[in-house]
């Protein structure tokens, strides 16, 4: 996803000295090599088993932060939002036996709390 179009042609003025709240700025960068964590918490979350522990690259940062549904399911910390990342994982990384083109891959959005640097 591209950044939102800027209105007009003038460069926006960015003020300095603004302190961001925790979780406001994304922790990972586009192009960064990551690994999906192998956690197995109880409750509601949306990380499929087959990507846990797998290595990939951050392809895009989803611009709008979302609630942590893992916490929200228990009514906890529902106000704290973080980023989703669109992760690119090669099919060969997911399935050792994969027979298609080595370029074939998966794209999946993973919540910030499920990623670590690799």
């Amino acid at each position, binding site marked *: *996803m591209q950044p939102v179009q800027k209105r007009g042609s003038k460069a926006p003025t960015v003020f300095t000295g603004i302190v961001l709240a925790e979780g406001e700025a994304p922790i990972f960068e586009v192009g960064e090599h990551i690994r999906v964590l192998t956690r197995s918490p109880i409750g509601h979350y*949306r990380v499929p088993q087959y990507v846990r522990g797998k290595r990939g690259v951050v392809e895009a940062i989803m611009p709008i932060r979302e609630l942590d549904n893992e916490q929200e399911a228990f009514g906890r910390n529902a106000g704290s939002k973080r980023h989703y990342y669109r992760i690119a994982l090669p099919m060969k990384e997911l*399935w050792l036996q994969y027979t298609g083109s080595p370029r074939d891959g*998966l794209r999946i959005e993973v919540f910030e709390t499920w990623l670590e640097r690799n």
Partner: protein
Amino acid sequence: MEHSTAAHVHSPSEASSERPSYYEVMETAIQELLIQKQLIGAGEIRRQIEVLDSRTPALGAKVIARAWVDPEFRSRLLANGRTACEELGITFYDDTKLIVLENTPKVHNLIVCTLCSCYPRPVLGLPPDWYKLPPYRSRAVIEPRAVLAEFGTVIPDDVEIRVSDSTAAIRFLVLPVRPEGTENYSEEQLAALVTRDAMIGVVPATIDTARSRK
């Protein structure tokens, strides 16, 4: 979260000889309880069914046709699927975001939701049954080429396959390659070539589409 009741709701006057299933009974019971406790009204359920019924693949097809004829709209659609659709009056009643994935001669996109049935409902309406069933949901990420071949779509080895698994608040829509030989087609004629399956990514858009549907 994604379980729509629309397909299962029967009007009270509708006679059925079959006994309702366990889940249908549970659904009706919950519905009655919610109405009794005045958490929702019967009108709200009816309204939501109307919202869903107004979304069909024909809507998505118009979006694709617009992108094929209007390069500026196309770039806005690829930059932010939701706001570009909103320009055309398509609302995102479920507050999902939309990423539009562009198929090219080098890249073929395929959409799946391995966890349940996430689907770009605001643009396409309800998903087909096969999209919600375990065989497609598991095989689309394990052996996408074999699944595509079963739909009659054989992807050459030098074309990269990208499977997008919808798991969160983001939905996907495939922008198929505009078929060759459609240079003189009107926007409306182009829209007729775009099928639901082409926007999921299991088949390409072809000139034959309009004919084979009859």
